């Protein structure tokens, strides 16, 4: 029942936070902190246990069981990031309702990853949708509405599938699809997949991400990207290897299609990310891109590729959250997330810089960080399976990651410091703490990927998929080997060597940022030394045609169409009583003719 109590803590804590904040802001913060800490503690001690509960609410029975090892893993990601996010959000300005929605959101996500029947699944999915909507609502409402509409669309796909599934199986449990035809299974699978694809922002359902991430409160964005997007990924695992396991493992073409969808998402989102001026928009697309790898990995459904996907999503949870926290701390101090207005902050906010630096290193998948093992396994599995073009697409996507991640670190932390930021200080502890905390797993899982892989092994063996060969520090495939520990050691040794070489050289002197090579010009503040606008203009120029081709325009057209349809349809109500009588009379006559005709002629 521990899980139930965790949910109870979060729900009650949320309500108490709301009420407490009405009395005093600090009381609210204290309650929110307590409840998130408690949930973190209680969830952590569930490690390695089977847990769950059933409650009867009359209409349905709700079952929550940690039937998949990933349940605990994602749950832990959720509570950790939730705790950090709540901690950071104390420094930001929020309405009292925000803390309630964050805690309810955490509860919803915990319920989702443990949902054992489809009712609980849908209930928790809607909880997640609703309360992440309220989280974004605290930032900017238009984006929240966009988020809500898209995610409801996804939820509706899922509920449609649940309803149809119920029709055929007569059961609300997710584990019973035996006597369905292949086509039926395919349709249901695709419905569910599309639903989760909206949550995990797979193309072409990704358009809400940019606005939602950009406009949500900064510490909430970390939660959105780090934890909420994992809901979709967990959903993929659920349907691919549990509900439709037999069907999916056999459906090679389906696997390939979905893997390609993931690959294309990774590539396109990566390219879009390079063109963004807003750091959070950039990270939004990078998040889409990284989750594309995950989809590509798990959709290929070999033990190695699944491990790759799973590892990548753990990595994504770590580095993407880290990145959003650093952006949050920058935004907290400077009040902007637009890269064109920032620069040179390394001198003022070193901890945030280190966070961002390691974040982008992991994001681009450079060893020995948590970003690499997943990518490595992904390539190996693609090549082993002979999916070379897919590997190439993913590889290109990962090159775009270098492009946009450098732009991110450069535009914010490097380059000249604008004079308005002269008096800036490092972000408060509430922001630096999450950054420092997240750096630990980022490096630890980078040199010891086995910690995560052993957990994934349990998933693979429980669901009977297979196993991969690895230890704590190395992974072996039929193609080659990656020893993360050695890479880490060589890295450290090489750095020490290079640093010694560096120390061998002469002394240096610190100079002002404008004291640089400008071909004789004497520069000051009025010179634009910060190369940030249109960073990759030459690239954009080459791919102009591609950038113009956006799925958004289709959606815009569609929404305009619905709007116009609404305007056209309401003209039926012409306001004239005569028309209404005519509608009435004609419909009646028509009905009599149709049904009477059947009877009489």
């Amino acid at each position: 029942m521990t899980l139930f109590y965790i949910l109870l803590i979060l729900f009650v804590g949320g309500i108490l936070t709301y009420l407490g904040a009405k009395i005093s802001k600090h009381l609210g913060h204290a309650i929110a902190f307590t409840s998130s800490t408690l949930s973190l503690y209680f969830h952590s001690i569930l490690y390695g246990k089977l847990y769950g509960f059933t409650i009867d609410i009359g209409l349905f029975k709700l079952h929550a069981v940690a039937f998949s090892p990933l349940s605990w893993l994602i749950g832990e990601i959720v509570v950790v990031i939730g705790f950090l996010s709540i901690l950071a959000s104390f420094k930001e300005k929020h309405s009292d309702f925000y803390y309630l929605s964050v805690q309810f959101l955490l509860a919803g996500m915990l319920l989702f990853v443990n949902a054992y029947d489809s009712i609980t699944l849908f209930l928790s999915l809607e909880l997640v949708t609703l309360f992440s909507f309220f989280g974004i609502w605290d930032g900017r409402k238009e984006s929240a509405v966009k988020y809500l509409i898209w995610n409801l669309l996804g939820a509706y796909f899922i509920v449609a599938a649940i309803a149809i599934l119920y029709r055929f199986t007569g059961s609300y449990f997710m584990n019973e699809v035996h006597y369905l035809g292949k086509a039926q299974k395919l349709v249901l699978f695709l419905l569910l997949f599309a639903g989760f694809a909206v949550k995990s922002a797979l193309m072409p359902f990704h358009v809400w991400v940019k606005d939602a991430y950009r406009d949500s409160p900064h510490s909430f964005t970390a939660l959105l990207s780090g934890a909420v997007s994992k809901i979709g990924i967990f959903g993929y695992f659920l349907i691919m290897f549990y509900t439709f396991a037999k069907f999916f493992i056999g459906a090679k073409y389906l696997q390939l299609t979905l893997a390609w969808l993931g690959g294309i998402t990774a590539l396109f989102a990566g390219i879009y990310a390079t063109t963004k001026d807003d750091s959070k928009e950039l990270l939004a697309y990078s998040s889409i891109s990284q989750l594309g790898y995950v989809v590509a990995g798990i959709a290929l459904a070999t033990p190695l590729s699944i491990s790759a996907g799973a590892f990548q999503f753990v990595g994504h949870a770590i580095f993407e959250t880290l990145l959003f926290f650093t952006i949050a701390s920058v935004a907290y101090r400077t009040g902007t997330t637009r890269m064109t207005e920032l620069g040179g902050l390394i001198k003022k906010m070193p901890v945030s810089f280190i966070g961002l630096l390691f974040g982008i290193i992991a994001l681009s998948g450079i060893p020995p960080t948590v970003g690499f093992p997943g990518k490595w396994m992904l390539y190996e599995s693609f090549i082993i399976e002979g999916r070379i073009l897919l590997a190439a697409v993913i590889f290109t996507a990962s090159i775009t990651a270098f492009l946009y991640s450098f732009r991110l670190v450069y535009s914010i932390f490097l380059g000249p410091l604008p004079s308005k930021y002269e008096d800036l200080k490092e972000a408060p502890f509430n922001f630096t703490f999450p950054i420092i905390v997240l750096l630990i797993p980022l490096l630890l899982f980078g040199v010891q990927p086995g910690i995560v892989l052993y957990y994934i092994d349990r998933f693979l063996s429980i669901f009977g998929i297979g196993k991969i060969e690895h230890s704590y520090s190395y992974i072996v495939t039929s193609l080659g080997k990656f020893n993360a520990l050695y890479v880490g050691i060589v890295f450290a040794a090489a750095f020490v060597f290079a640093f010694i070489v560096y120390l061998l050289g002469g002394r240096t002197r610190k100079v002002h940022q404008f004291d640089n090579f400008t071909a004789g010009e004497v520069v000051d503040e009025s010179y634009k030394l910060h190369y940030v606008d249109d960073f990759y203009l030459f690239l954009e120029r080459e791919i102009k045609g591609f950038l113009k081709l956006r799925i958004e325009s289709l959606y815009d057209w569609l929404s305009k169409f619905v709007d116009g349809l609404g305007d056209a349809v309401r003209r039926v109500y012409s306001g004239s009583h005569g028309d209404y009588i005519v509608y009435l009379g004609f419909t009646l006559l028509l009905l009599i003719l149709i049904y009477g005709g059947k009877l009489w002629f």
Partner: protein
Amino acid sequence: MNGGAMFYGAAIALIIGGIMIAATKRNLIKIIIGLNIMETGVNLLLITTGYISGGTAPIMNKTWTKVVDPIPQALVLTAIVIGVAVTAMALSIVVRIYEKNNSLDIRKIKEMRW
């Protein structure tokens, strides 16, 4: 059977005619008259269902051999009362409309639409 086709035909004609008047006329009074005509048609239909050709009034005396069904007549009485109430209601609304608009033209009160 208890009634001629003529009565049914007349009733249906009255109903359709009334509805058509209500639908096409612009003067509110005429619309209400149309509604009344429709009601008359309905009442006629009701009566017809209980009518037996050549039957007498359903009064319990010694000579009753062939009486019409009394219930439709009772119903019609009620229906007429209801019809009057509706007409009265309608007319009172029309009076108020006339006070507001100085016109009985229903086209002039088409403000609410769409």
